[in-house]
């Protein structure tokens, strides 16, 4: 079983557009949406839920104000400025600022603070027209997105292995932080979707740096390549210098948004050259994965 993750560094370059098309083209794959705090793949693949469960991301502090003697030790020690105080209601925990480290619970001399399991979101296994999909919804403003990404990937792998699928396709999150790390560690191949803008290129180089940091082979595709041909040439040069195969250049075409509004991937909606380039890209990616 092989595993492919689609990332970009910069958001909005077309990760999910490419992932949805690959999902439809792949005949024997499981899908995982690893962008758990702004998941979008479900909007194209319109999944029917088979099962779902709470995501218990970790533990968080709970303060019993009956036991609290207002000694202030918790506030003094907290490094995240997460303990609030008011004369009327005493000490309270600001859950948005809280890092859930548990130091306040360890330190409270009255044992007024206990650590309890926290539900940070929900995850789903669903059926789609492109195959089974594992996806999740991180609670609004919740922590532990990296852990939820790991869980979504693990579940995807379990299904793929159990049911004999030969590929897991992960739609990755933007950035280079903990959810991205969780989405790429140990995968067989990463596809970086970039665009010929200074931001797109800057972020591609950083996310490529992350792939090298973890020693993961990567491919590149350029979306909206004709927006700035000079920059596209710079991306080609970068790829050549770094031995990064450039597997596709997708033109800028408003039809891509029309496909999205119709809830179809670009290989289902007639998108002309866009559809053709994405199909050719898929053939190259499959070859890289030895499928």
């Amino acid at each position: 079983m092989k595993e492919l993750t689609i990332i970009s560094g910069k958001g909005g370059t077309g990760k999910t557009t490419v992932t949805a098309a690959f999902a439809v083209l792949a005949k024997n794959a499981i899908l995982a949406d690893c962008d758990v705090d702004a998941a979008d793949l479900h909007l194209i693949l319109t999944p029917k839920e088979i099962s779902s469960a709470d995501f218990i991301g970790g533990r968080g502090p709970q303060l019993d104000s009956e036991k609290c003697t207002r000694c202030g030790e918790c506030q003094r020690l907290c490094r995240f400025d997460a303990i609030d105080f008011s004369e009327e209601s005493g000490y309270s925990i600001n859950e948005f600022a809280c890092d859930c480290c548990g130091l306040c619970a360890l330190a409270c001399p009255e044992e007024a603070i206990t650590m309890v399991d926290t539900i940070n979101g929900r995850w789903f296994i669903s059926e789609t027209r492109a195959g089974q999909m594992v996806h999740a919804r991180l609670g609004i403003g919740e922590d532990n997105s990296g852990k939820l990404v790991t869980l979504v990937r693990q579940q995807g792998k379990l299904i793929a292995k159990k049911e004999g699928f030969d590929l897991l396709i992960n739609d990755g999150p933007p950035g280079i932080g903990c959810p991205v790390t969780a989405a790429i560690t140990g995968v067989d191949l990463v596809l970086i979707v970039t665009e010929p803008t200074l931001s797109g290129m800057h972020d591609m180089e950083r996310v490529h740096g992350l792939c090298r940091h973890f020693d993961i082979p990567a491919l590149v595709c350029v979306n909206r390549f004709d927006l700035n041909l000079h920059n596209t040439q710079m991306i080609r040069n970068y790829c050549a210098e770094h031995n990064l195969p450039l597997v596709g250049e997708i033109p800028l075409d408003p039809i891509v948004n029309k496909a999205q509004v119709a809830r179809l991937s670009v290989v289902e909606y007639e998108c002309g050259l866009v559809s053709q380039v994405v199909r050719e890209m898929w053939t190259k990616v499959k070859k890289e994965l030895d499928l």
Partner: protein
Amino acid sequence: MIIAIASGKGGTGKTTIATNLALVAPASQYLDCDVEEPNGHLFLKPTISDKRDVTMPIPKIDDELCTYCGECAAACEFNALAVIGEKVMVFSELCHGCGACTFICPEKAISETTKVIGYLEIGKAKAVLEDELFFGHGVSNVGNPLSPPIIKKVKKLVNDDCFAILDAPPGTSCPMVQTLMGCDYCLFVTEPTPFGLNDLELAVGVARQLEIPYGILINRSDSGDSQVQEYCRREAIPILMEIPFDRDLAFAYSKGEAAVIHSQSLREGFQKLYQKIVAEVGK
């Protein structure tokens, strides 16, 4: 006044809006809180006068004092410590620098050392209507998974006498929440597509929970459907500005050129946006 420019979905134009607003707003500060992928400097081209490392504390074990009791590993909520036989292993990439291990160690065998996780750069950029604006950004080192401590440091650069614009990271998890906390207003930049709307609704949920007033800017406003407009009407959310798709503008963006420098009408548009934000905050 502190304003966050956020979105939920990436690539909707947060940095475009934040930098152009900073270029025309009086006494503005542009602070890039998208420390994983900071891009504002590509458009503002600041002269950097100060660079500082951002560090976080990590535990250091004194082998002479350690009795391998395992209390530290049991106390760590992030599994950043493990005691195997007569060895304590510290996984610094998992550490959040909370200090629980140092606190709990009965032998006082744990002290702290610092680890560099990124850096801040501070400087000035040329503004359009005034001489200059304050520029600051945080940059997370490649391989560092933890961006909130860097975002906190960027936010310390806020000057209360200025119009501070925080360019937020995408998504709705801890880095985005860390950016929005304590802001006076949040402007969500979205696009009129199913992805734009879905992620906008999630992001609005964060502003509501944090009790921050907010409005919407629709970028590439003619490129999808009318669902975002309908959502705003239904929820009575003010739409402060709509910018249609313009290939010339997209081309200028791709080269790192700010729109307000080239387009008189956009310059006036962003000045109006500034006035609307100030009026919204005053409500």
